[in-house]
């Protein structure tokens, strides 16, 4: 099955990392661990990854990075006192499943 998305790891340096033109052209989704999802087989997605010097990851590699970040956040939440956990917010960080 042809994949819909591709993933890379790139540190968001701020202004110019994703500009308005790029954001209008393709849909970006940023995940924990500096993992970025952009459309697969897409010229503008490929150009953006090159611009930010992103390290391309397979979906499984990207998922592992995201899992590690989420699990660390979950562990930090679990380490809170019962009183802190009783607060309605924030909830325990949820697992994230990347799309193919």
């Amino acid at each position, binding site marked *: 099955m042809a994949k819909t998305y591709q993933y890379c790891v790139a540190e968001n340096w701020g202004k110019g990392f994703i*500009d308005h033109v790029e954001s209008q052209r393709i849909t970006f989704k*940023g995940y*924990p661990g500096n993992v970025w999802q952009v459309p697969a087989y897409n010229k503008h997605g490929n150009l953006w990854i090159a611009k930010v010097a992103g390290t391309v990851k397979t979906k499984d590699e990207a998922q592992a990075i995201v899992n590690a970040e*989420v699990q660390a956040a979950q562990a930090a939440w679990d380490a809170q006192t019962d009183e802190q956990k009783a607060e309605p917010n924030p909830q325990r960080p949820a697992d994230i499943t990347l799309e193919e």
Partner: protein
Amino acid sequence: MATYKQNVGTTVVNYAGNYPGAADGELWYDSTNKDFKYQYANVTAAGSWRTGNNMNTGRYALAGAGIQTAALGFGGHDGTGVQALTESYDGVSWTEVNDLGTARQFLAGSGTYTAALAFGGGPPNTAVTESWNGTNWTEVNDLTTTRGSLGGSGTQTSSLAYGGSPSGAYTESWNGTNWTEVNDLNTAKISPGSAGADNTSALAFGGNEPSTATCESWNGTNWTEVNDMNTGRLKMGSAGIQSSALAFGGAVGPTAQTKCELWNGTNWTEVADITGAKEAISGTGADNTSALAFGGSGPSAATEEWTGAGAPVGAWATANAMNTARIRAGGAGTKENALAFGGGPGAKNETEYYNGTNWTELNNLITARSNLTGSGSYTSALAYGGSPGSKNETETWNGTNWTEVNNLNTARHYLAGIGSDNTNALAISGNTPGGATVDVETWNGTNWTEVNNVNTARLLPGAAGLNNTTGLIAGGVNGGIQDTTELWNGTNWTEVNDLNTARQGPGSGGVQTSAIIFGGNDPGTPGVFGNTELWNGASWVETADLNQVRGQGSSGGNESSNSSAISFGGDIPPETGATEEWSGSSSTIKVLTD
């Protein structure tokens, strides 16, 4: 060979990089990259309908005049009887104004919302014509032929009446004083669609039972058959002029329609449907890029606004991150001049200023806290509420320092706030030791005073408003996730149309008639999201997502419309200092290639 300046009228600008002052299509030379470039605005490829606020009285077979943002609806039938009611639309809300002198349905209308004409209708069929001066209707000279279910278009001083029952094909021209019979339609049309600028140019389409798809164009002397509609129908809504019109709803036999067709001066093309099937619906609008549909069978009070292809497309862009990553900070200011203060995890007191490029640390809050709210500008802001526990501390910011002032009456956290500066604000809902509160307090620069409650208590709603007398809240959580929206008029809260995506802890900004909400999360759905929605005073519509999905973020909020916003901080997880800027319009830059 002619030079570029001779052809275009300007020289090619030499600029190091992308030229920010370039007009649509203007060529410039990028001396850094050694490229010739041009740019054009990104716009929507197709038109769409969007719900507007309802009329005060639902009715069908009414007439309309004006444009999308300044319209008049008059006459019709409300299900109990024929009406003389007139309502005026200001682009956001309908207001009842003075009635027609003669109650009637299936009448025709022309003109603007301050200078309109109402003619014909029934029952019984009438020739009565009335003129609207922005305040009152005055009877003027009658049509020469009594009729109802007619078409009409033009202005108060130059209109055309055509078709209708029982005359079918008769056409009359109005010169501001009298109606004069002119050449007939080629095909009789009862309850046709109509469009036209004056008595020298018009378009008549559809009508009759069984319905016709024929369309005729008026040149001031004769009607000429032009290309047919795709779906013949009668009792449709219509808008526009001879060369640029829209037809929507109506009936084919006994079946009400949702179909909408766009006339480009040559052909009819099917475009996006109206929301609900309606016949005897009314419409008005300048052309096929901007129209209003209202009323119709039911009787319906619904209003829908049409925006044609070519509307600006907005987008988020990343910006430089805050120095201190945080969630649920207080925020103030705008995309160009924003302030972030406090936040979590734990309780922070750091204050940072964003100048449109970078964040700089400034003097800290006196009371470190998270889950607070803020409002105002970067030189005159207010921080109030927060946690741990529930705080009532209020601090004012003068551009340099925070100063403690009088406390909120009800200590709370997870609240929302709006306000222009440190002299006025509204503290809305939130969480108290006793649970979610409906309490609202207004700040006058010295004290907090309780005012009327919100209808639905909620934690972590989004809010928009530039002062304490007009604003809105949307979303939040209280037991279940919220999608409801409430408007504040300075006295009371009123529930209006819901968000498309229920959420808690979104960023937000803008004003009551033009707001934006973005990001957040739903405790019942794993993860956070980047969904962005725009509010036009009546309804929310989804637009481009944040690039970095996040919950529990913050925003400046002090923007005057939804065309500009800033999002900072939040929970990815973990907490982040990431910033994004929203622009309601965007451009594509093209490079000339070999």
